[in-house]
């Protein structure tokens, strides 16, 4: 394994990102958003990169998390920590259901099913507007108050987001290194063989969905608190698509790849959308280029450069061992 893909190094890079963002970004909101999307892109990568499941339904869990935050913080005054736990558990539960139904089919059928489910949940949110606020969404979602007054300053909320990010990122790293994560990789590599040596493949895929959904819902709750709104847009097809694009652009060979993908997407979107509102046109072209020339994503590029400059010796050793 490349040095930069080792779990401790990956965590170190995540920590570095958390420390570096405030130095480079002027907006605490944007910095928090980068970390939130980095978290949910990593959760998406758990499915895409580690299990081989391309889910178009991540927006379901994201939207769900923000609705839980919106509903229970504004209407019932439930404490923040409990709301976050509720969002996480509900995300896991719904992801289990959606995952279990979708993995009944494989390959592209699976992808189409997740997309159709994301539409189902969108219309669910749209139809039951008493609960979700429909088109308007839920307003005035408060930020957490940890004894020192509400975090009106975006940078103080950034600290809260950063701690969440680091803890969940570490847990996901642990999951990918565990016997569970290693079995997921086996399922991705050769599902038929994984079943033939005795693994209940469906249970593993469903569990991967549950973890991914839990983390994504947590991220959705954070996002609602950050901007103070739980909008219908969070559960839209467009959100699912964006999460997936970040993940693929980042690359699927390590979890930190998703952090890179999310950061690149969010920061470029922020810059470009101020210059030209139709910047999505360029994004469309960029996606085609990634598929043609950068199939391992930005992280794949970084891996290549790393080997070129720092681990030449290792690739040499490998060649010698082959002789």
């Amino acid at each position, binding site marked *: 394994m490349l040095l930069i893909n080792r779990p401790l190094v990956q965590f170190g890079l995540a920590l570095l990102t958390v420390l570096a963002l405030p130095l480079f970004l002027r907006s605490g909101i944007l910095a928090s958003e980068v970390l939130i999307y980095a978290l949910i892109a990593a959760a998406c990568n758990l499915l895409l990169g580690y299990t081989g499941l391309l889910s178009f339904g991540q927006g379901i869990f994201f939207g769900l998390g923000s609705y839980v935050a919106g509903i229970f913080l504004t209407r019932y005054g439930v404490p923040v920590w409990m709301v976050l736990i509720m969002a996480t558990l509900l995300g896991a539960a719904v992801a289990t259901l959606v995952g279990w139904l979708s993995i009944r089919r494989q390959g592209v059928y699976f992808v189409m099913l997740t997309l159709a489910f994301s539409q189902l949940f969108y219309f669910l949110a749209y139809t039951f507007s008493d609960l979700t606020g429909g088109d308007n969404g839920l307003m005035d979602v408060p930020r957490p108050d940890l004894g020192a007054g509400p975090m009106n300053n975006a940078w103080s909320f950034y600290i809260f987001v950063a701690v969440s990010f680091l803890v969940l990122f570490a847990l996901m790293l*642990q*999951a990918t*290194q*565990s*016997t*569970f*994560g*290693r*079995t997921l*990789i*086996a399922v991705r*590599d*050769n599902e*038929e*063989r*994984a*079943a*033939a*040596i*005795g*693994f*209940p493949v469906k*249970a*593993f895929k469903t*569990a991967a969905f549950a*973890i991914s959904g839990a983390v994504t819902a947590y991220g959705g709750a954070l996002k609602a608190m950050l901007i103070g709104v739980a909008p219908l847009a969070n559960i839209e097809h467009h959100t699912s698509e964006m999460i997936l694009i970040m993940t693929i652009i980042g690359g699927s060979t390590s979890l930190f790849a998703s952090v890179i993908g999310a950061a690149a997407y969010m920061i470029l979107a922020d810059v470009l959308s101020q210059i030209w509102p139709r910047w999505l046109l360029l994004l469309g072209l960029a996606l085609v280029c990634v598929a043609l020339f950068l199939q391992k994503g930005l992280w794949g590029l970084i891996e290549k450069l790393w080997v070129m400059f720092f681990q030449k010796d290792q690739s040499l050793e490998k060649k010698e061992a082959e002789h």
Partner: protein
Amino acid sequence: MSPDIALTTRGLGVTYGKFVALADMDLDIRRNSVHSIIGPNGAGKTTMFHALTGRVMPSHGQILLNGTDITKFRDDERVRQGIARSFQVTSLFPTLPVSENLRLAAQGKTPWAALAPWRMAEANRPAMATAAEVMERMNLTAVHNRPAGELSHGQQRRLEVGMAMAAKPSVILMDEPTSGMGVEDIEEMKRLIRDLGRDHTVLFIEHNMGIVMNISDTITVMRLGRKLTEGPPAAVRENPDVQSAYLGSMITGDMA
């Protein structure tokens, strides 16, 4: 039932509509022996294989593994009961190292324990030990860190068999283990199967009679979905029915 019989079938049959793919198969596979099923193409070998692995549900008869009736068991349940298989077309985890392929195969015996996202893979010491043992025996220790997809064809076939062994099964089913191999690799594989038979129960199907002769303890010859004859290699070789079934062509092969 005799305790040295690992796998038994009685009156096993598979029919597809009116087509009888397999009929009246009675087999007794002795423990720690190499038992081969041979027959020309279309003899029903593959159907027999699938009926044993659970990929095809038998229409008639019974399958007993160590005295337990597994006729109705799904394929993954049969794995847990102690049936392992190797694939004819090599089926590995190509991006994972050899050691990881084997560790997974060993872990497959207790699959639910692997569902824990907090437990480290290396903590399953028995699985790690099994993987190391199998690598040693399969002569793969030198390439333990190499992704399975990058191995030579012969190494891949050995890993394929090793993965079946790693589950510590009562019976290893092998589907044409030498298919697509070069001459040297075939010799190596034959040596390996022979060696396996000392402490494992091996049942393999093969259409090339030359390959099975000097490594099998018992040979079952199939034709048209039924058992033609059965016995030790020497007896099978002399059987006139077998000679006519094979038109004398393959039996003259490698008989050393």
